[in-house]
């Protein structure tokens, strides 16, 4: 359905509640609506127009419009349209009708703006804290503009333990995480187990929330943020780097030169390659199949070396600036990359053929962690998890960015919706990525890498960008601002949505299947907040507490 048709239907249905609609072109639509009608408009868009829920964003707009801002983002994947429904909230404290009952996928995002901005989602079905720790005092909201980035409120009790829900009757509680061999990052699942069957769970995460959005809005500048954005994820960092740059470019109506777009595409696909190979390895390790774990890591290694040769780093490529990229491909690099791709393709084909008929592996993955297309729609699942359930969505094709509109590739889908089909989808996507990189290397035009930018980017413009990460769609939203930095920058990583599907995926299956079910969404939490230091000369081991580390970081003594 084209954008003007959507606006028409919204106006027919809701009349004056639709205050303003902006169509900046390039598949974006911003609709300002009356806050009283927001809930029914969202239901209409989600259910009747069958849009996919992306995320919800709160923003402190008081310095500019004397109000708070709430935006619900939806995607019309068939027409390549990303749609933002915005509303201004003038009350104090700001309140907005919760849409989580109509759109279950909004559950976390609404709790997040409740925690961080103090915008109350009225009628939320589960208004428990999500991001802020339990010891954080009520009424203090770190993302508000009048709060400094390093603000720690009085009475903050760092050591307060989580308050958990009561487990259902007849169930025993099994703690899973924050430290577990198959959980590489801190997150806690409280599993309710009856015998060997999991009946439900409660999730507590955000244990190492780093406040990167706040830094971007208050300390960093436009061109410093890509480096911070890259560090959001240790595996698909380049995705956030590109997504942020694209969101700003979109807001400022800048188009990077074609060669830069091709380079972005190549690096994104290189990242997908190494990420998928890593995932197959880890998934096999989880079910105790270490041989394939080792093999995929061996096959993956040349890709890491290649990335280091291209960018100077195995993992953090430091690729984008606003309006371009920071480095180029030489002819030698292109030739060598072709060689590496050839080798990876051959070796991976052999592995995929061997695995395709492996009954033993199927026993642990077939029919495990099943998602139905309804669950995908309701919880907003994305990436290989959605595609394995037969939901044909892929931002690279649906909302083309970089050079994806100039290359050919297939979107791989599965049918089972279980761990096995996720494995097959990812295994096949490796070949598509190789195809994309080859086409890019062939078609890449000569030309500049970086656009000449105006001294100041326009202020108060909005941009959004969806990039297909290896784990699913990463979505960035930017409102441009003063002082050479964005006013609001919101990141929604793919795991944010996919994790919300976990309780439904592990319900009523065996405890032994929990780890592989969780592993199958390729989760990506955040990173460590504590470390151990060994003095080599004396052999003395010191363990620093979080508090000591923070002190040291501020004094820069390490």
């Amino acid at each position, binding site marked *: 359905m084209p954008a003007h048709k959507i606006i028409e239907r919204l106006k027919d249905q809701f009349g004056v509640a639709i205050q303003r609609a902006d169509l900046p072109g390039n598949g974006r639509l911003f609709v300002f609506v009356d806050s009283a009608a927001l809930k029914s408009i969202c239901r209409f868009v989600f259910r009747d127009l069958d849009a996919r829920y992306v995320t919800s964003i709160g923003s402190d707009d008081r310095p500019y419009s004397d109000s708070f801002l709430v935006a619900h983002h939806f995607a019309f994947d068939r027409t390549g349209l990303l749609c933002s429904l915005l509303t201004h909230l003038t009350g104090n404290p700001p309140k907005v009708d919760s849409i989580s009952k109509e759109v279950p996928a909004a559950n976390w995002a609404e709790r997040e703006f409740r925690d961080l901005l103090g915008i109350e989602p009225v009628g939320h079905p589960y208004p428990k804290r999500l991001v802020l720790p339990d010891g954080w005092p009520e009424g203090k909201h770190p993302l508000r503009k009048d709060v400094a980035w390093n603000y720690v409120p009085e009475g903050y009790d760092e050591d307060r333990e989580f308050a958990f829900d009561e487990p259902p009757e007849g169930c025993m509680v099994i703690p899973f995480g924050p430290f577990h061999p*198959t959980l590489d990052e801190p997150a806690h699942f409280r599993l309710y187990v009856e015998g*060997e069957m999991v009946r439900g769970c409660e999730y507590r995460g955000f244990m190492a929330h780093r406040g990167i959005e706040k830094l971007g809005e208050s300390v960093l500048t436009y061109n410093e943020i890509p480096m911070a954005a890259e560090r959001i994820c240790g595996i698909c960092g380049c995705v956030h780097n590109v997504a942020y740059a694209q969101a700003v470019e979109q807001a400022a109506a800048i188009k990077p030169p074609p060669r830069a777009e091709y380079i972005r595409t190549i690096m994104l696909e290189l990242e997908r390659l190494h990420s998928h190979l890593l995932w197959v390895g880890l998934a096999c390790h*989880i*079910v*105790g*199949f*270490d041989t394939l774990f080792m*093999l995929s890591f061996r096959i993956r290694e040349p890709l890491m070396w290649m990335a280091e040769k291209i960018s100077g780093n195995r993992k953090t490529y430091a690729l984008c600036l606003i309006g371009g990229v920071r480095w180029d491909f030489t002819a030698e690099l292109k030739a060598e990359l072709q060689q590496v791709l050839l080798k990876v393709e051959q070796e991976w084909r052999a592995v995929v053929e061997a695995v395709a008929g492996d009954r033993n592996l199927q026993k642990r993955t077939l029919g495990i962690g099943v998602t139905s297309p309804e669950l995908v729609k309701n919880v907003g699942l994305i990436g290989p998890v959605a595609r394995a359930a037969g939901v044909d969505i892929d931002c690279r094709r649906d909302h083309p960015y970089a050079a994806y509109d100039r290359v050919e590739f297939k979107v791989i889908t599965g049918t089972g919706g279980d761990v096995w089909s996720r494995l097959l989808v990812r295994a096949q996507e490796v070949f598509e990525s190789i195809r994309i990189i080859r086409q890019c290397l062939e078609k890449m035009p000569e030309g500049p890498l970086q656009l000449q930018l105006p001294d100041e980017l326009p202020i108060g413009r909005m941009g959004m960008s969806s990039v297909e990460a290896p784990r699913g769609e990463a979505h960035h939203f930017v409102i441009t601002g003063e002082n050479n930095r964005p006013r609001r920058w919101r990141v929604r990583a793919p795991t944010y949505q996919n994790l919300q599907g976990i309780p439904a995926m592990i319900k009523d299956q065996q405890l*032994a299947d929990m780890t592989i079910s969780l592993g199958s969404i390729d989760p990506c939490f955040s990173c460590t907040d504590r470390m151990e230091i060994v003095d080599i000369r004396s052999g003395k081991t010191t363990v620093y507490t979080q508090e000591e580390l923070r002190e040291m970081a501020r004094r820069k003594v390490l």
Partner: protein
Amino acid sequence: MSGKAIIEILGGLANVVIVLIVAPFFEGVLRKLTARIQSRQGPPLWQPYYDLLKLLGKEDIESGESPPMQRFAVYLSFAAIMTVACLVPFGSHAPANSIGDVLVLIYLLTLCGIATMLAGLAAGSTYSLIGMNREMMSLITLEPLLVVAMVIGAIHVHSFRLDQVLAGSVYAAAGFPWSGLIMLGVMLVSFQAFVQRVPFDIAEAETEIMEGPLMEYSGPKLALFKYVQMAKLVIYSALFVALFIPWGHTGLYPLDVLIHLAKCLVMVLGVTWVAATHARYRMDQAIRFYALLLGISVIALGMAVYGY
């Protein structure tokens, strides 16, 4: 003490020494071969010896719910497996005949499993309790297979004596009886489960329940448990060889020991290959598999009774 008793004791001790020396080496072979299959360099063959020495020299931290029971569990486990070593033939016939018969051997093997369960209970964490639970389930369904194999042998040779049963007794009646061949097949496919390696390392499953019963062990006690696991690999191989592959004895004791160990090594290589090419089964899948095998072996037992 009669001369015969002294020979029995010396023979048993010789077995213990052989097991203690060879077990880490077999583990080393297993690791090296696994590494080669996985296109890795792999540790040196002697690494398990170093590992054990290092663990033995470490600080002994008792962190579980009930340290006395943990101590008891590990000593019980080690003692039981070493007693089993005295009873199993290595090269010559079973040395310590007058200590006990086949039934004692089976009890001692069961005791090993029970020691692991005690360890899980003593650790007292949720994960070790799950591991204990799984160990118990597999003990109940798996151990009867070995019992049936030995009883079939005993039926064929009309004796429960160790030296008679543990000498290819399953084939004793009329050339190659069907019951013996069926049990050979059953034991061959379940062998991986007896030595508790992938895909049947369910009770310890590192990536699911973090080594289950062993999770609270460290230092010397962990070394003993690791030693028991390595010894199990050798002893179950020796048992299998004694029951099902009895041929090729020369009568010369040192040479026979080497031949026997070579056969055991072939078993270890098989275990390695299976472990490197499989994913871990879930408990319910494993139990179903054991139950099927148990059904087949009961049929074989019936056939043995009627002389087939």
